[in-house]
C-alpha cells in the first residue's frame, strides 16, 4: 500500500492508506451510515469499557467506574454527530477507527 501521506482528492494529506481513502471517498453515503450507526455504537462501548483504565479515580475512588456508566448517552452522541456532520469522511473514519481500536486493544491487554 502507498504511504499514508499521499494527498487525496480534496488535496489534503490522507491519514489512511490511499486505497482505503479511495474506497471511503467512493462510497460516502455507505461510509457515513457505517460510522454513524455501528461505528458510533462501537465507539461508545469501547470508550465505556476502556475508561476504567485511563480515567482518574478521583478522591473518592469511583470516578473511573461511575463516569463511563453515567456519561453513556454522551459517549454515543458525540461520535454519532461527528459522523453525521464531519466534512472529511476519511479523517472521520480514521478518528473513529483509532478511538475504537486503541481502546479495545487496551481492554484486551488488561483482561489478558
Amino acid at each position, binding site marked *: 500500500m502507498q504511504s499514508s501521506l499521499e494527498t487525496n482528492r480534496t488535496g489534503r494529506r490522507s491519514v489512511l492508506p490511499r486505497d482505503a481513502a479511495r474506497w471511503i471517498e467512493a462510497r460516502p453515503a455507505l461510509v*457515513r451510515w457505517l460510522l454513524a450507526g455501528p461505528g458510533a455504537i462501537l465507539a461508545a*462501548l469501547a470508550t*465505556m*469499557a*476502556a*475508561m*476504567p*483504565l485511563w480515567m482518574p479515580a*478521583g*478522591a*473518592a*475512588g*469511583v*470516578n*473511573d*467506574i*461511575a*463516569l*463511563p*456508566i*453515567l456519561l*453513556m*448517552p*454522551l459517549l*454515543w*452522541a458525540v461520535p*454519532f*454527530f461527528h459522523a*453525521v*456532520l464531519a466534512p472529511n469522511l476519511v479523517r472521520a473514519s480514521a478518528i473513529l477507527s483509532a478511538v475504537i481500536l486503541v481502546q479495545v486493544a487496551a*481492554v484486551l491487554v*488488561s*483482561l489478558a
Partner: protein
Amino acid sequence: MAIGQIELKRLTAIHGWSAVILGLLLYVVVATGAVAVFAEEIGRWSAGGLRTAAPLEQPVDATLRRLSREVEPEYREDVAVWGGAGRNLFAFFHTHAVNPDTGVLEDKGTMFRADSVTGKVIDRHDGFIWNDPAAWDDSALRHFLVELHVQLYLPSPWGLILTGILGLTMMAAVVSGVLMHRHVIRDLFVAERGGGRLVGARDRHALVSSWSIPFAFLLAFTGSFFSLAGTIGFPLVATVAFSGDQEALSATLFEPPAPVDETPATLANLNAMISDSRARADSEATYLDVAHFGRSDARVTVWHAPGHGGMIYPVNRYDGATGVWLGAQAPLGTAPSLGGTLYGLMYPLHFGHFAGVFSRIVWGALGVTMCVVILSGFRLWVRRREADPAWRRFGQAVQITGYGLPIGMLASGYAYYLSRPSADPFFWTPLGFVVGVALAVALGLRVPDERRYGTLAQRLLAVLCAGLPVLRLATGGMDWATALMHGQTDIVTIDLLLVIAGASLWWFARPKRPVVRLLTEPAE
C-alpha cells in the same frame, strides 16, 4: 459551528426519519412518563387507605424486630424497608442466591406487607419475589403505568434496551432539531400562522419544541442512562474493572466498606435512628436498609426525599449495634466526587421531585408538551406528504395512537377497579389497556375520516375520564368527605382533575365550523 446546506439536509433526514421509525414508541414512553411523575399520588388514589402519616414516619422498630424472628436466619443479611400506599409497610428480609429458573444471582428472601400502625402482617411472600409484582407493589394500576413507561411492559432486559434506544433517539432529535433551527430564540415567540396552512403546522412544532429543548435533552439523557446502565453499562464496566463481578462493582459504588464482625448483637433502636436522620435531612424518610441485622457489624442506612432547597437525596448511615451516626453517605463511594454528584442528580432531574409537588406539576406539564412536540412533528411530516396514500395511512395510524394510548391507560384504570374486589388486578389491569387500545384501533378502522374520528375519540376519552372517579367510589374507594377530613387531598385532586378533563374534552369535541384552508402551498 457553521451548518452548510448538505449538513442541514442530513440533520433534517435524521430528525424526521428517526421520529417516523421510533416516534410512536417514543410517544408512549413520554406520555406514560408524564403520568408516572405522579406515581405516588396514583398509588394512594388507587390503593391507599386511611392514614395520618407516611409508613416510615410511624415507629417501625418493634414490627421489624418481630418480623426478623419469623424469617430464615440467612435472610437477615439485608433488610430493605419502604412505605407503600395507605399504611402499608414493606419489609424484605433477603440474601443473594442463584435463581434456578434464570441462572442469575438474585435477591431471595421473605417479603412482608404489614400495617405500619398496628404491625399486623397483611401479606407474606417467600423466595425470589421480584418476579411477582403482587409481592412488592400494592397498586396494580401504578405498577402497570410505571412499567409501561420504564420498559414498555416488555420482559427485561429487552424492554429496557428498547427504551434506552428511544432515549438516545430523543436526544438525537433534540440536538438535530437545535442545529437545524437557526433561530431558536425567535422560535420561542413564533405565532402560529392560521388558516390550516403547512407553515402553521411548522410554526406550532417549532414553538412547542423550542420551549421544551432543555427538558427534552435532560429527560432523554437521564432516561437512556436509567435504561442502559443496568443492562449494558454495569456488566461492561464490571467485566473490565472487576472481572465480571457486578456485586463487587455495586459494593464499591454503593456500600462503604465496614469491618466484618459476625458476633451477635442486638440492633439499636431503629425509631431513634430514623428520627435522628429525619432531623439531619430535614425531610421525611423514604427508604431504610439494614445490613447484617442482629450482628455487631450491622449498618443502617436511611434515605430521604430532597430537603428544602436541595436536589440530591440526603442519606445517613448508622452503626446498627450502637445507633451512632457514622455520617452522611455520598451518592457514590465514600466521599463526594464528580461521579457521585452526577449520579445524585440523575434521579431528581428525571423524576422531577426536587421541589415537592410544584416541580412534579412542572415536569408533568413539560411531559405533556413533549407529547405535543412529537404529535405536531408527525402532523408536519404527513402534511408535507399528504399526496401519497401510504403517508396518509401513516397519519391515520398516528392519530389512532395519539388517542389510543390515553384511552388504553384509562381503560386499564377501569379494569383495575373492576377486578380489585375479587380478581387479580395485576392480571386484569394490563388486559384492560389492551382492550382500550383495541377499541381505539377498531374505531379508527371503522371511521377513517380524521375529523370524525377525532371527535369520537375525544368524546370517548371524556366519558372514560369522568366515569373513572365514579367507578372508584362505587368499588369501595375512599369518599371525598373522609379523604378531606384526613388530609388525603390527592384522592380528591385526581378525581377532580379527571372530571375537569372529561368536561373539557366533551366541550372540545363540540361541533365546530370547518377550517377554511387558504392557498395550498408546495411542501417546503
